[in-house]
Every structure is written in structure tokens, then in C-alpha cells.
């Protein structure tokens, strides 16, 4: 199967008042198209930093990220933005919905930005698929946490990304809602055959991925394989 994402000797060091701090050290990994990968680890292990680097939201101190054969580290911010626009989708722990926009408008936003026709219809379809057909005109503060995350998932899939990065998608939700959300996420993922890179500290969620990597103190510890859903 073709590789869609590859990290080579990826390191990230930041300068703090106390001196240089290495957050990630020599990370090597690759993700195949259509694969689902969970990166697990304790708080502060560098999971979110790694996700940011893999998705091209940030640049490594050294090493390379290849996303669909494009070397993200060789691109400037505009170039990385283009790659994200064309291939990447996100689901965040804190949902990242714009509070002033309705659920429908939040989903429409990336479609409008990409200039695609029929943004409204498409957004309505996806909101219906996540079970929010009746709540199109609600604003995020009027929705529960689970509903907000469903809007975020609809927004992510509406753009039909090749690869979806999910950062603790159930981290802010109770376990029952978390289960609903993860069902929705994996269901849509399977349907769209999207590559999924998921960051979580929940084993239950990680176990639903085809593969797991554990991160501790900025280094990959175990390369677990083929966990069964």
C-alpha cells in the first residue's frame, strides 16, 4: 500500500528561559494510505507537537515530513497551507468552532474558502450524517460538547480530506458521548477511506486504530502493530 505520510529523523527543540528543551527526538514513522494510526502517550510527552509537525502546522527543528510525497519542511508557510487545504482535515479536542457562526456556517466555512460550489447543500448533508439535521441554525454555545464535536467532524469530512488528524477528539467529553463520537469518527473514516492519525491518551480509542505508537518524553517507545478493533 502507498505511503501517504512519512516522518524522518524528526526533532523539535524550543528555547525556554531555562535553556533549550527537546520536545521530540529523532522520530521516524510512516503511515499508509487508508491506515488508521493512534499516537498515545502521557500528558507532556509531545503528542500534540508531533501532530502539529505531521500536519504541517509547525516546522521541525530538524528532520523531514513528507505528506503525499511533498516535503513539508521544504515548503514555506503558504506552500504548507496549500497542502493542508488540498489534503488535510482536523478534529480538535476543543472543537475549534467559531462561536459567532451557526453549525451550518461552521461546516460551510472550509468549503466556501476552497471556492467549491454547493457548499450549503454539502454542509447540510454532512450535518445530517452526524445527526444534527435539526440543529443547523444553532450556534456553538447553544450546543452540548458532543454536538459541537459532531459539527467539527462534519466540517472535517465535508472537505473530503485524504488524511485526517484528530487531536484527543473525545478528550473533553464524558465516556458515553465519547463513545458516540468515536463511533461516528471511525464510521465516517471507513466510509470515506480516509487515512486517520489520532492522538489520544485513551486506550479504548487507541485500540480502535489499526496501529499504535507510544510516545514518551519525546521519543517513540513502542511500535505496536495491528491492534484489533
Amino acid at each position, binding site marked *: 500500500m502507498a505511503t501517504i505520510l512519512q516522518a524522518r529523523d524528526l526533532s523539535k527543540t524550543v528555547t525556554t528561559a531555562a535553556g533549550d528543551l527537546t520536545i521530540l527526538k529523532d522520530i521516524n514513522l510512516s503511515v499508509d494510505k487508508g491506515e488508521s494510526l493512534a499516537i498515545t502517550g502521557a500528558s507532556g510527552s509531545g503528542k500534540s507537537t508531533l501532530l502539529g509537525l505531521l500536519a504541517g*502546522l509547525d516546522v521541525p527543528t530538524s528532520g523531514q515530513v513528507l505528506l503525499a510525497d511533498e516535503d513539508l519542511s521544504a515548503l514555506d508557510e*503558504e506552500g504548507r497551507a496549500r497542502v493542508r487545504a488540498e489534503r488535510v482535515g482536523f478534529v480538535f479536542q476543543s472543537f475549534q468552532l467559531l462561536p*459567532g457562526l451557526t453549525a451550518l456556517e461552521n461546516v460551510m466555512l472550509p468549503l466556501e*474558502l476552497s471556492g467549491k460550489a454547493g457548499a450549503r447543500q454539502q454542509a447540510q448533508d454532512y450535518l445530517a450524517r452526524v445527526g444534527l439535521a435539526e440543529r443547523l441554525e444553532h450556534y456553538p454555545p447553544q450546543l452540548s460538547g458532543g454536538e459541537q464535536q459532531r459539527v467539527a467532524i462534519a466540517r472535517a469530512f465535508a472537505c473530503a480530506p485524504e488524511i485526517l488528524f484528530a*487531536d484527543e477528539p473525545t478528550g473533553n467529553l464524558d465516556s458515553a458521548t465519547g463513545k458516540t463520537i468515536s463511533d461516528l469518527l471511525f464510521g465516517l473514516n471507513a466510509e470515506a477511506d480516509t487515512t486517520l492519525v489520532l492522538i489520544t491518551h485513551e486506550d479504548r480509542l487507541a485500540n480502535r486504530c489499526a496501529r499504535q505508537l507510544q510516545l514518551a518524553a519525546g521519543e517513540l517507545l513502542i511500535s505496536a502493530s495491528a491492534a484489533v478493533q
Partner: protein
Amino acid sequence: MLALRLLWRNWRSGEVKLLAIALTLAVTVVSTIALFTDRLESTLLEQSNSLLGADKLITSNQPHQAAWQSEAEEQGIDTSRVAHFASMVFAGDEMHLASIKAVGQRYPLRGYIDLSEQPFATSGPSVTRASGIPPAGEVWVDSRLLPLLHIELGDSLQIGEHSFTASKVIVSEPDGSGPFSVMGARIMMNMADLDKTRVIQPGSRVEYQWLLASDPDDLQAFVEWLEPRLTEHEEVVGIENAQRRLQGTLKTGRRFLVLAAVMGVLLAGVAIALAARQFAARHINPVALLKSLGVGARRIRLLYLAQLSCLSLLAALVGLALGYAIQELIALAVYRLYQIEMAPAQWQTYLLSVISGPVALVGFALPGLWFLPNVAPIKVLRQDLEVNTGAVLWQIAMACGVLILLVVVFGRDLMLGATVLLALAVVAVLAGLLAYGLLSLGKKAGAQAGSRWRLAVASIQRRRSASVLQVVVFATAVMLLLTLTIVRTSLIEEWQVKVPEDAPNHFLLNIAPSEVEPFQTLLDKNQLSVEQLYPMVRGRLTFINERPKPEDTLNREASLTWSDQLADDNEVVAGQWWDEWSGSESGLPGVSVEAEVAERLDISLGDELTFSIGGLEAKAEVASFRTLEWESLQPNFYFIFQPGALDDYSPMYMTSVYLPPEQKTFINTLLTNYPTIVVIELDRIINQIRTIVSQVSDGVGLVLLMVLLGGCLVLVASVNGSINERKQEAGLLRALGASRSLITGGVWTEFAILGFAAGIIAAVAAEALLIGLQVAVFEVPVQPHYIYWLLTPVVTAVFVAAIGAFSCRHAVNTPPAVVLREAA
């Protein structure tokens, strides 16, 4: 289209509302002041020009050339003609040497002729405005002509070979004090009747005036075309050299309005900058999200620029409409009060007002927003990441640059704008330090005080830098308001002092020495008094030392007087007055010269001046220079001689007297007894100055209102910045059992403390700024304002507390459950 959609969504969510309001206010302030100043200036100029009856006029002893007329028509200049001359008029056995003014069609080009059918009326229902010039065969006359000729309105009088009906009396007319008016009562006739009288013969002494009016640029172009073609007998007369008294008033009024404009715009600018910062702070996460969705920095910049451009343009249009409406209301009020129709504003002013919206956006808002597209996309994952919001100095520099630009374009007074800005910069820095100190004091006091006080002080300490900023902003706003109020009051008082109610309103000239005593008896009998009788001879300055006087200055006879007393409004600025003067080495008598004319004529102390008085020569040595107040409406002289210096020249006397309106007919009694006495009626000029002062102070009142609005908006904007944080704090406190009244009391106390600190700083700073303005700009004596020292902190504390509590009402009133859920 996408930008418009995004703008609409941002508007709906309330995120751009404050920015929009601040921008609208800026444009409203700019357009109100710009439109009003423009209209006021044009109106004042028109009114001043109405003293000429035109914008400019060409005086000559010949009718103007026909070729000029066609050139004027071609260039779109309005013209009219006037001929002034003195002639005997007869009615039965009575006769009078009248000052006759023959006027052509369209006279006056500026101003109005007010008429009445009731002699000596000065106002009231009988006074009507003339819609044209006297019809052929009719004349309009000065009221005092009627008793002089023993006639009534409707009777006829004879001018030269033609008989006219005196149909109306003139209440006021432009150029009332024409060259011959001093000789006798005015008669206004139609130019078409002039030939029928046959009074103008070759050699007759006539002053022809060719009246011109147009918009300033066209007129200037025409005058430039005309000037090289004028002979030495022809002269261009404009308001600049015709009415010096009004000029001073105009200049001060204009400076004041510009000052107010600078302050109004500055406050609106502060509100815009604060609103923009809040907008930027709220858009950090959305921008990071947009970036994660693959939108590049360049596109984000374009998207925001497009949104804000639309917003500023909309704000500009609304602001212009509001500004137009407000100044139109004032114009209406002016019309109702003074029956003065304000001139329309020029189209450039409308355009500039609209442009001020985007300009204010660029200057005040964009610097604070510029960093937004550079927000790192990783911010979506890392909320703790700090965002570089750009260099503050650069933002301040941009704001100052735009402010100066606005001041130069609208106010056309760079010095004033720069002075105020510099002063404000110093004030802001000092206020920052003072505020820091005062708030630290508050902390100590808070530790020993009750719970409301502690809550308030804790809140101030938690937002220490924001609190200092708020105090500086409040202090600046209050200082500006205070300065404007005091300057306004003192300017009006100053004008009132200069033109008191009982200021002399008539000059009486040509009183013969033998008439002085009976004249004074007559005054006493009528309970009128004069301050001083000035002896006067008419003479022409011919030589300064051995060189002839420069040709371009003082080409006429001047009134020469002598006196041992220095008038109250005169001040010796160089040399000595007679009591200290050691006398001339050559034995010549001394002369004191008005300082400005001395400068124009390049006269130095000790120079020998030669005057020609009735063909005889008189010499004197310059002993001193004097400044004098033309605004005072007292008799003033360019040259005052040492007593006795002009004894050989038979003097006539002059004086000034205050005649209440009901005693106006005294002039008749006076002239019947002493027909050679010449009366100059100043009451019209005084009324004119009063009207102008009223107009300017109306304008100033309006500007104060706008500045106050700006101040309020700044308060709301600055409180709004911390509103979410406050909401959470209040929610948490209430969840922990604090009562609503405790929290409300805490908010009131907090803003009262900030207001009190701001008030103290404002009073100190305003006093400092006032001293600067009084000394450097308005040139009036420095006066402390102790009452404001006491009142300002208290009033500011109450005002700021009220606005603060109002702005925080949602934070206090939202149920804690809602607040905590939103915060989760």
C-alpha cells in the same frame, strides 16, 4: 463576496460592532467638524464679506472697463456696480449733504439690505429683507434723513434734477460705512436713475466700486488676471484689509474649532485602536483555525482587509450622514436664532469626510490588526502559545501620523496639531507613571478596607497594566474635555470683555473746538457720556527721515492726534511715553507710532517723520511704539503726538459714545444742532461680531458633545476588553456565595477608584495644557482654575463608575451557571 459574507457573520456575532461604532464616531466627529467648520467659515466670510457687499471689490474713480466685465462673465464671476458720492438733497426748503449710493442690479452680492417702513426701527416685525434694489424713481433712506429734511416716508425729495419718492428706511445695509457715509445720511438709489439726476459731471468726486463674488479659487484666479491691468487709481479690496476687527475673532474661533477637531479625532482614534485590539484578540483563534484549514497568510490578510475596508466605508457613509444631520441641526438652530442662512459646504469636504473612515482604519485599527495573519497555525493545538502582537511603538507612530495628516488636511494648522500631540504624549507618559503610583497607594488602602473595596482593589491589581491604561485613557479624555470647556468659556468671556454690552457704538467726528462745550452739555442733558475727546487733524505721512514713505502702505490721510494720557487698550512696547521721554536732540516734538504700521513702514525709534497737514509740513521724532486692540472698538490712532505738537493746526475733535437702541434718535437732535458733526454707526459692526461669537460658541458646544461621546466610547471599549474575564470572575464569585450587590458594589468601587485617579491626573494635565495654550496659541493671560481641581476627580469618579457599571452589567447579571458552563 466571501469577504462580505464573513463580514456579515462577524457583524451578527457582535465582533465588529464596537469597531464599527468607533469608526462611525470618528467619521461623525470628522465630518461634523469639517462640514460645520467649512460652512461656518464660508458663512463668516460671507457675513464679513457682506460688510463689503461682495467677496472682493475694485475701487476706482472711474467706472470699470467694459472688457473686464466680459472677462468676468466668461470666468463665471458674479458682478455688480456701486457708485458712492456726496450730493445735496432737497425737500421743500430743507437741504442736506447726503451720502448717496447708486446700486446696480444684483446688489449686494453678499449680505442683505434690511428695510422698514417705520423710521428708526432696528428690529421687530416691521423690518423686512429687501429682495432687490430700489425700484426706479424710489430711494431708500437712512432714518435720520427724514427729520433732517422734515419729511415722512412716501414724500419726495430732489437729487440733482430728478425727484424721488423716499419709500423705505434702511435698517442695515452691506458696507454701511462707505467712504462718504461720514458726511451725512445715506440715500440708496437705483443705478439706472443716476444719469437722470445729472449730478455726476466731469471732475465730480465719485468712488466707483465694482463688486465681485464667486467661489474662492475662481475669484482668486480672476483677481490675479485683473491685478496687472489695474492703474494706480484702482485698488482691490477684500475682507483681509477691510475689516481687521473681524479677522481676530475669525482666527481665534477657527483655531479653537481645529483644536476641538484634533481632540475629537484623537478620542475616536483611541476608541478605534482599543476596539481593533479586542477584535484582533478575538480573532487569533479563528485565524489559526483558518490557517489549519489551509488558508495562507496572504489570503487571510486580503480577506480581513476586504472585510474591514467594507466596514470602514459603510461606517464612513453612516458617519457622514450622521455628521451631516447633526451640523444641519445646528445650522437650523443658527437660522432660527439669528436668521442667518449658513453657506453650503464644499464638495471636497464631503469627500474628505468619507475618506476619513478608511484613513482612520489604516491609522488607528490596522497597526493593531497587522499581526493577525502571522498567527502560527499551531495555535489551534497549543492554546498556551504566545502570539506576537507587533511593536506598540510602530502602532503609536502610525496613529500619530494619521492624526497629523487629518489635522493638516481638515484643520490646515500643522503647528497646533503637532503642539497638542506632543503635549498629549508627555501627558500620557506622566499619567502612566502617576496612575501606577496612585493604584499602588490604593492597594495599601484596600488591605485595611471593607470587602467591596478589597474586591475592587483586587480587580484593579489583577489587571494592573490594563487598569493603568484605562486611567491614562480616561485621564486623557477628561483632560481634553476639561481643556475644551475651559478654553471655550474663557474665549467667550474674553470676547465679552472686549466687546462689553455698553461698548461705544457710535463714533462722533468733526466736532469743532467751539462746539466742544455745548456738545458736552447736550450729552449731559441726554444722560450720555463720552470717555475722552480726542483732538484730531488729518494729515499724510510723506517722509521717513530723508526717504519718501513707501508707496504701498498708508496711501491716504491718517487721523493724527495728541494726548498726554495713554488709552487703556494701548501699550508702549518700545521707547517711552511722554512722562519718561527725554525729548528730541533736534528739538522736534515726539510722536508715538502703532507698532504694526511702524513695522510695515520700516520705522525705527528716533526716526524723523514728516507729515503734510493741509499743505503745511509738520515734523516729529519717533519716541515710542504702541500696540493697541482693534477689537476694543475704541477710537485708535496710528500716530499720537506729544501734547502741543499740533497746536498750529486747527484741530477738530472726535469721541465715541454708547447710544442705547431707544436713544438712537439722539443722532437727529445732535445733527440738527451741529450739522457738521459726522457720525459713524458702529452698532452694526458690534452686532456682527456678537453674532459671530454666538455662532462659534454654538459650534463649540456641538464639538464638545462629540468629544464627550468619544470619551464614553473609549470607556466602553476599554471595559469591553476585559468583559469575558470579568464575567467568569463574577460567575465564580457568585457560585462561591458572593451576593450580586457585593459584586455590583465592587464594580462601582473599582471604576470609581479608576475615575478618581483619572480625574486627578486630568485636572493637573488640563491645567498644564491650558497654560501652554493660553501662552502660545490664544495669547491670553494665564489663570488657574481651582474649582476644576476639586470638581474633576469627583465628577470623573461618578461618571466613570456609572459607565463602567453599565458596561459590566452583563458580566454581573449573567447567572453563574451560564457563565461557568460557557467557561468550561
